[in-house]
């Protein structure tokens, strides 16, 4: 095939998919009020995607924090600036690593579970059965899971950041001997509320992205074993790329 035609083809395909995802998001948002009136459906999903992701988030957060503490200490000690380790670690985590790594881990731990669950429900006619029972599957199945992700990701990010800072403190202060008071006061000195908000906006945007990609891929997966498998893979790949692109865009916009 002519390479231009192939390029145009894949471009139209991507645009069409982006359009479909946007329409799906509007569909979801339109049905949110009805589901918010039944908060139990949402809290169940927050438990499934958020609480059950705590172990991986906390473990990763601690190790990411420790490695930033170690690398940060190594770099800063060459400049004789170990004192600002706390500030450096906090800014790195709050503004960048916290939201991004949490979103990537969330996509792998909870996004895949959501996509394959919805995909299998579709493959085994459970969604069709709901439609026939006059129950809207987008409202009953998709919306609570989407909202669960939107609520969980910012909360998990906050936990990731806190544990990460503790990890860095452990390496910097407890192991490497940075002054404890300096670690915390420099952090207070240099971290502005705007830095915290940057991370919060990012984590909300990533929560919407991770949730939307997972429910979209699951809901639209072909009703076969291969289809559900592909949907799970695409959930991780698409979320990861979208999160990294969005991260750049939000940073460029806010700085």
């Amino acid at each position: 095939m002519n390479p231009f035609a192939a390029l145009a083809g894949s471009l139209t395909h991507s645009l069409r998919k982006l359009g479909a995802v946007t329409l799906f998001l509007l569909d979801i948002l339109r049905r949110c009020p009805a589901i918010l009136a039944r908060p139990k459906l949402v809290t169940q999903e927050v438990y499934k995607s958020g609480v059950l992701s705590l172990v991986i988030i906390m473990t990763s957060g601690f190790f990411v924090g420790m490695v930033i503490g170690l690398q940060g200490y190594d770099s800063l000690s060459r400049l004789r600036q170990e004192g600002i380790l706390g500030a450096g670690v906090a800014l790195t985590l709050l503004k960048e690593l916290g939201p991004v790594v949490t979103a990537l881990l969330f996509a792998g731990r909870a996004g895949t579970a959501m996509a394959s669950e919805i995909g299998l429900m579709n493959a085994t006619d459970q969604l069709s059965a709901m439609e026939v029972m006059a129950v809207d599957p987008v409202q009953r199945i998709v919306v609570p899971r989407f909202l669960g992700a939107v609520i969980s990701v910012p909360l998990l990010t906050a936990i990731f950041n806190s544990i990460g800072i503790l990890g860095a403190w452990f390496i910097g202060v407890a192991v490497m001997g940075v002054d404890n008071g300096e670690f915390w006061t420099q952090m207070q000195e240099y971290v502005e509320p705007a830095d915290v908000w940057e991370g919060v906006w990012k984590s909300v945007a990533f929560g919407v992205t991770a949730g939307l990609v997972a429910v979209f891929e699951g809901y639209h997966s072909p009703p076969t074993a291969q289809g559900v498998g592909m949907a799970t893979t695409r959930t991780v790949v698409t979320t990861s790329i979208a999160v990294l692109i969005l991260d750049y865009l939000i940073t460029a916009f806010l700085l």
Partner: protein
Amino acid sequence: MGPSGTGKTTLLRMITGQLRPSAGSVRVAGQDVAQLNRNELYQLRRRMGMLFQNGALLTDLNVFENVAFPLRENTQLPDSLIRPLVLTKLNAVGLRGAASLAPSELSGGMGRRVALARALVMDPELILYDEPFSGLDPISRGVVLRLIDMTNELLGLTSIIVSHDVEEVAAIADEIHVIAGGKVTASGTPDALRESPSDLVRQFITGAPDGPVAFHYPAPDYRADLFGGFE
């Protein structure tokens, strides 16, 4: 009834409004299904029940909650009313004792019976069965057959069964329509169809392996195909 892949399930999905016909119309209770808006369609679906081929039970809910699902979603009934409603339906299919089991703990036949209880729990006027006997052992098959017959008689509802189990369906149906190639090729009482002059209907009823529905998928000449590589 009709051979596999001839559009029987598609027809059912048009009756429930999940698919729109590209030509013609489907009328249920006097309403043209394709013309209804979302709310009207959902209102109409509350008067229908459907039993899916594999039961389609919700895997994250237990048997009781599966049967209670349509009531919880479509009505404001309190738990004190939902409980007896669900238990009577489960008792009717003989599975009151299985109320707390998960769908994964049920056999195929039990799953089908739970799905039947769920289809009946809203007291529908019309009930659709998609291949209710496929994949069941003879005992479960007999049980499901008896349940379908009984609900039809006792509740006085309209039942549409899509199936290719000739004997089972002929035993309980008032009327059989044979669909093949996207068309209704024969209609009538089970007895009338047995006498049908159509080759296709006779092939279907007697289960002959070859006839109008050919045993072989269309293929090039056998000899030419086998030795094609040497020429």
